[in-house]
């Protein structure tokens, strides 16, 4: 199965800019479906970015993060061709991990 995580990490000078887009419903638990039944909460709780064995960015998310979440940040260091590891875990225990090459 294709990964739910799409990442673009670009090294320029001393820093690496990371943009990530994840496919996830991010259901808040406040929305009803067509039958009027509440759609149970289903959202990513933790999203971690690791570079060189250390986490460079950790997101703790609630249900108020938009569907198919997007996040952008940058960190010092990171070279072209090196790996950035991205993983998430949601409130239902599902998870996904991917590794992206820094460009």
């Amino acid at each position, binding site marked *: 199965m294709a990964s739910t995580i799409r990442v673009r990490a670009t090294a320029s000078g001393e820093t690496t800019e990371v943009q990530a887009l994840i496919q996830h419903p991010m259901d808040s638990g*406040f929305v*009803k479906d067509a039958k009027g039944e509440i759609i149970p909460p289903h959202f990513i709780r933790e999203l971690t970015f690791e570079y060189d064995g250390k*986490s460079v*960015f950790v*997101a703790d*998310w609630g249900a108020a*993060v938009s569907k198919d979440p997007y996040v*952008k940040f940058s*960190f010092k260091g990171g070279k072209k061709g090196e790996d950035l590891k991205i993983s998430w875990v949601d409130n239902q225990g599902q998870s996904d991990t991917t590794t992206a090459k820094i460009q």
Partner: protein
Amino acid sequence: MTITDNGFSATRRLILQGVAAVALVGPGNLGFSLAPAFAAANDKYPEDAFKAKGDADAIKALYGKAAEPSDKVKLDAPEIAENGAVVPISVSTTLADVTSISFLVSENPNALAASYRIPAGTMPSVANRLKMAKTSNVIAIVEAGGKLYSATKEVKVTVGGCGG
């Protein structure tokens, strides 16, 4: 003489330690317990903070203290959001020693939307997209050098993002 000196300084040290311990424990006992709040903000998913209703309660649950407004926190959000389901919001700051950045939407059912841990070496700047139930203040909190700084901006929402 030397023995007396040592005895004196040892006693003095003990007394000072005692005073320090009281000073540390005091505020925790008076208000709420500070230790778990800090642990939650630093390395574990802050479950309680995300369940808190209002913005003040969420900040307290997450950090254990209140934030002061600062013009060094730059919150970038639209004046009017056409679609409350996807509101692009970003924060950057010129403050040093930033350890975390959090986003709150005051009028959402649970005010805390996202909290980001910023290790040393990572830039204190985050962009993301949040859901907003209705027109509300958006609050950005920056934790820098153990203190909290905030910026607030009202975003008008024409179509809510939390259905119903």
